[in-house]
């Protein structure tokens, strides 16, 4: 498998991924900040076993946890969680972003989000990693403005809906990121590690530390934003959250595209259909405030499904 991400990109991707979940949690308690970090820690430790195995595909990565080589069921379950999370994120992020633009129809907001995620997923995980690096451009001015701006500490309230999102899909993100960061075969070091100058002795351990570091950084950034807010209308914060949603959604789309990558297009399409239908109906049955417009959901999922399948078949890099 061709290596895509450098450790620094992995760090920032994890940061944006976790940060987007924290943003959706909406002014949580300190517990809500700590829980996602604990979740990342847990999944990263679980991911260690997979990271130490040689592999070429996502299914190989998952097979590290299976007693036999057959990985169809765990792979299907894995993709189900990803698809479900993609739908959840779309609805939640769409709702949050619409608050800033109530004159825009909700479907248009969703369409823009999907288009951005599709574009990124089509361009490949390498581009996604570079996009995460650009977030530094936002973080630096954010910190500067906070430092030189007004300080208004706010009270934190308890509300933990966003934490669920972080929990629900963290395994998929960690597994996927790790699998895109290391290489199989005898090379030992990946391109990403070569660019850093030297390869760490314990590669898997280094990766886990990087992921945990990214998640920890996200928690700190969120705490920083909660404690020293800009004011009501912070455009930079709005953009940072927007970017985090886009990156997370793109990552989920990339995972789906990667998972559905098969030479047999019909097989991939059927698999994608089954997976996403299952995700939609399960989530709709379980219920939740975000799924009230069921019709939109079906449309969304159909679009999600079609796009990710097409990406998976034709355009994954």
């Amino acid at each position: 498998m061709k290596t895509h991400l450098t450790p620094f990109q992995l760090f920032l991707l994890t940061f944006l991924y976790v940060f987007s979940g924290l943003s959706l949690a909406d002014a949580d308690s300190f517990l809500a900040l700590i829980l996602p970090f604990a979740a990342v820690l847990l999944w990263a430790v679980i991911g260690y076993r997979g990271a130490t195995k040689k592999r070429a595909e996502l299914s190989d990565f998952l097979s590290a946890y299976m007693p036999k080589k057959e990985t169809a069921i765990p792979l299907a379950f894995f993709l189900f969680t990803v698809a479900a999370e993609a739908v959840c994120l779309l609805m939640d992020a769409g709702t949050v972003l619409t608050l800033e633009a109530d004159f825009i129809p909700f479907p248009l907001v969703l369409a823009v989000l999907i288009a951005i995620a599709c574009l990124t997923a089509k361009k490949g995980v390498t581009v996604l990693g570079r996009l995460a690096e650009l977030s530094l451009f936002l973080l630096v001015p954010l910190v500067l403005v906070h430092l030189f701006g007004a300080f208004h500490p706010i009270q934190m309230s308890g509300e933990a809906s966003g934490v669920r999102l972080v929990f629900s899909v963290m395994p998929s993100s960690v597994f996927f990121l790790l699998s895109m960061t290391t290489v199989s075969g005898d090379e030992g070091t990946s391109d990403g590690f070569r660019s850093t100058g030297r390869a760490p002795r314990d590669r898997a351990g280094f990766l886990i530390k990087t992921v945990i570091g990214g998640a920890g950084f996200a928690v700190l950034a969120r705490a920083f934003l909660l404690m020293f807010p800009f004011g009501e209308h912070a455009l930079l914060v709005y953009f940072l959250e927007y970017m985090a949603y886009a990156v997370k959604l793109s990552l989920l789309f990339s995972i789906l595209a990667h998972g559905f990558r098969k030479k047999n297009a019909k097989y991939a399409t059927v698999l994608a259909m089954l997976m996403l239908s299952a995700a939609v109906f399960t989530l709709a049955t379980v219920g939740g405030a975000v799924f009230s417009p069921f019709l939109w959901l079906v449309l969304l999922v159909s679009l999600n499904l079609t796009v990710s399948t097409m990406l998976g078949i034709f355009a994954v890099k």
Partner: protein
Amino acid sequence: MTAQTIRKELANAFTDMTDFAFRDMVFGENTVTVAYLVGFCSRIFVNKYILEPISYAYTAGNASFPLESIITNIKVEKITEMDGAIRAILSGNAFVFSDTMENILGISVFTKNDEGRSTMEPETENVIRGPHEGFTESAENNVVLLRRRIHSAKLKRRSFVVGQETMTDVSVVFMEGIANGEVVSEVCRRISEIKTDAILDSGYVEIFLQDGKAPFYPAIGNSERPDKVAAKLMEGRVAILVDGSPVVLTAPYLFCEAFQVTEDYSKSPWYATFVRFLRFAAYLVSLYFPALFVAAFVRHPDRMPDFMLSAIKSARESLEFSLFWEVLIIFLIFETVREVGLRMPKAVGSAVGLVGSLILGDSAIKAGLTSAPVLVVVALAAVCNFMVPPYMNGNMLYRLLMIVISGALGFFGFFAAILVSCIVLCGKTSVGIPYLSPFAPFDREGMKDFIYMAPIWAMKRIPASLTGKRLIRTQGKIPEKGVKTGK
């Protein structure tokens, strides 16, 4: 093939060309003929290095020596095919042939009349401190200008002939061992695969070398300054010289290069860093400020400070246009004036600029066609655009798009457009090298010469993203003081 046949075929090939000529020298039974293009060949070269030695050899009884030994020119080439003879004559060489030659048709002798303008300071890249020398239209001369700065055998040159009709000489120059081998091969491959009838300027080659069919931003750099191109060669880039063009192309071209100016390296690093911050800020302002203004006023007036909102509203009281259309119209008027100023002769151009900027703007406000705040916003963006010349044209289009999207979708559209452009830029490459390097992917050494500029002695390595390897450039320290001053 006999000399008579060669003469006949050449005459056929150059029919209806009054500048084509033969010069026959008859020595008893033997005739030596020189075929050339009048004016394109230097008469002095033909007389001194071809006719005189041949005449002397025959009169001195040394005619048995091969012609290429008799001709006293540094560059001679044996020609075995008629196409080669025609190409040699069209390149400005003299073609010499006679009946005594065996296994070859004749000899091509370099006599090209290379007289052109002398080196002058390029008008587009002025510097206060630094060399005042620029490239000329002669590729040979331009290579010499580079060799004067880099006295190294590692400076290599590969030549190509491109354009089926124009047969233009294109040279690829690079530093062996520093330039990335894959980049050199890729550039050479792309040049050799160019299929077109005419290459009249380096801009033609640039279009063919781009990664992507029609990019907004340039992926190939250009310069008229030998010192600048030499510096880029030393960083592992490749230079492409096209005969007939004073503009030399460089590849790969990265996003950060637009913010680097030759003079930065001879100034204090502190000041250079400050100026680069200014350039980058100006770049952001020119791109995003008008769109942000439109998004805020048209879609989110509640997000604007009250004093600003009331000032803009009072300035626009008598206007019938919406602010979106006002910005758009002023933007288009400004671009029209700019284009006219560029195309007109210098004296008239500056007058047009004056009329456009002062009289037209002032009159438009008085006539109630536009408001002062909008004029300030558009003018500020336009002035900032001039601070980063390589992106001037691309920014203009991008700014227009941003204004339209922001007007329609407010901040949501504004940030969506930024995200999409970031994604596109992240995926963009220049001859296979990531365009946003050294920022994304991050390269610590490369960052020392991006917005922040470290002293030259601190730039220890050449950015690995360019060379593909870790090459030491300096020792990372300045020489220690030899003399200690007293208390």
